[in-house]
């Protein structure tokens, strides 16, 4: 019997795994890595499903590429999974009779931005439209850069959009970042006249300046060039290639690199930045901003825009500190809308 007692004295302690926390943090900069889910609400037609797949690819590597959804999954299910997985953003695609919609939400509290997708082209459409679509192997192994342009700081809802989109991809620390990991770029351009946001996705390519295409290819490919048409070996070097070289000798696109990048791009030479579109392409219109995750008070709505801006101003004037007053304010806003005299 005493033996049993002895055994009891040492209870089994389950080792606590602290992996989860480490996963969510970049090991170099220590920043929190934002992660995302891209999924659909409701049934989508085929082309939108493809768009969803493209968006997932765009969000790589910190996203669930093969996220399985079922018809009975609701938002709460995703939210429950999001917590332990460290997912910070939801991208939701939905479809109504009028147009498809994209909602970008921060978990778990929100806010939620609702965009109407006016036009979109899939990655495959973009690739089809190109003569030589480009897809190097490690293209999707790093997160894309994001460029936000034309948003300005004046309007609140736009600045909110910029902050949300800035935080959707991991931040770049310029002191430690490797330029070879900058392979893609996502561009969001706000057009003030049409109030549309152009969403584009490009791949970044660097080319040495002042080197003909032939030599560049020769260095890159390790292939024996065809010298059949040439009189002398020196012709291969001196003879310029086709006229395509002249297309983008744009000084503005030239950069010098801190270190060598690949076989062709040397730190001693200047390199030209060339972008090629990857897709998907979208033109979005900001419709609505909600406080919570697809719920809560409406902070901005496109369709009551004139009133909305007025009330925003009144909000600024009246209460600076009290958050509790907010809801009352919203109520009063609604009253104002109903009142024709105001």
């Amino acid at each position, binding site marked *: 019997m005493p033996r049993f007692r002895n055994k009891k004295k040492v209870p089994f302690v389950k080792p606590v795994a602290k992996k989860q926390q480490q996963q969510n943090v970049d090991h170099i900069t220590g920043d929190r890595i*934002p992660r995302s889910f891209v999924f659909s609400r409701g049934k989508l037609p085929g082309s939108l499903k493809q768009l969803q797949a493209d968006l997932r690819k765009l969000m790589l590597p910190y996203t669930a590429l093969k996220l399985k959804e079922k018809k009975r999954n609701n938002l709460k299910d995703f939210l429950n999974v999001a917590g332990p997985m460290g997912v910070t953003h939801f991208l939701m695609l939905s479809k109504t009779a009028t147009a498809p919609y994209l909602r970008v939400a921060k978990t778990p509290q929100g806010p939620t931005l609702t965009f109407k997708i006016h036009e979109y082209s899939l990655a495959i459409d973009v690739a089809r439209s190109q003569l030589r679509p480009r897809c190097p192997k490690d293209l999707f192994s790093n997160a894309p850069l994001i*460029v936000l*342009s034309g948003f300005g700081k004046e309007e*609140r809802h736009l600045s909110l959009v910029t902050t949300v989109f800035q935080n959707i991809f991991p931040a770049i*620390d310029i002191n430690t970042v490797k330029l070879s990991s900058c392979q893609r770029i996502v561009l969001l351009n706000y057009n003030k006249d049409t109030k549309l946001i152009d969403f584009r996705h490009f791949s970044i390519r660097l080319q040495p300046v002042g080197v003909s295409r032939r030599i560049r290819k020769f260095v890159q490919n390790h292939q024996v060039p065809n010298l059949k048409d040439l009189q002398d070996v020196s012709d291969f070097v001196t003879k310029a290639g086709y006229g395509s070289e002249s297309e983008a000798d744009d000084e503005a696109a030239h950069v010098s690199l801190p270190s060598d990048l690949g076989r062709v791009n040397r730190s001693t030479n200047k390199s030209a930045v060339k972008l090629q579109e990857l897709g998907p392409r979208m033109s979005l219109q900001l419709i609505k901003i909600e406080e919570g995750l697809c719920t809560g008070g409406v902070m901005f709505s496109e369709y009551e825009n004139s009133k909305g801006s007025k009330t925003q101003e009144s909000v600024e004037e009246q209460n600076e500190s*009290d958050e509790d007053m907010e809801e009352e304010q919203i109520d009063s806003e609604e009253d104002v809308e109903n009142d024709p005299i105001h």
Partner: protein
Amino acid sequence: MAEETQIQEGGNVPMKRRLGQKKGGKGKNKMKVYKGSGEKVKVNKKMQKIFRKRARDYNSDDSDEDEGDDSDEALPVSRNKKNQRREKEEEIEEKSSDDDGEDGEDKGGDFEESEDEHGEILPGITKFAKGCKAFRKAFNKITKKSVPDSVLGPVLSVHQKLIAEKLAEEEVERKVKGEVKKEKHIVGEKGHVQPPHNFLDTHEKFLIGIATKGVVKLFNAVNKAQSARKGLNPERTKDAKVIKKRRNAAFFSELGKKPNHSEASSKADGEGPSWAPLRDNFMLTNSKLKNWDKMQDTTVAEDSGMPTYSSSDDED
């Protein structure tokens, strides 16, 4: 059931006789076919005999009608012979299943019959000729018939109208279905645009230009920041300080902004009380809150405020 089938077989005998004359082996093939659809009706031997007898009787009647001229006297004799032979065969084929056995025997019997009758009157040949003529006539009649040139083609049914109606209905249904599908497809494809092939319009070029500008800016900033500390050893405190200073100076000069602008602006943005979530967002990028556990490492803590810039620097 068994009886009925038996009788039918009996009725079919004259046809089979012709077959039997040409090739006796075909009977076996037919046996196999029959096996597949065979209903398993257990029949005793006695019952078998009775059935067979009935069949034979029926057969004889049938043949009487057909051949007419056959003398009644000759038949019984032949039948007796047949009976004897059949009984022998039965014994041989006891092993096989009931239905099959019967079928095979019937054929065998037919074969014998024809042999028997060969010697006497040769009724099979005349019958063959007759049948051939009739068949030819019938076939010619069918082939010569001019088919009405209708949409449906040659239909042997009386209810041509009905069929036509049905087909028309189906057509309409299919059309409606197709239209519905088309509509659904159009609704699903709403907003889906194919980019023009191998051609960039001005707007796309403009966007690419903006993106390129952003990339160039970032790359230059990275270049400045990273090449600044090339000659220095970051482990030495003296160098580290220099690195830090240079880095910040280079970076902020690159961006053309004041050093503390970022935090100020972020705070200003977050202050609006109705925009609480906005403030929450800035918690994410705020260096103090984010790197509370890394404060002892000064270089990292200093740098972490920059990422906001590197991504948002392209506003102008």
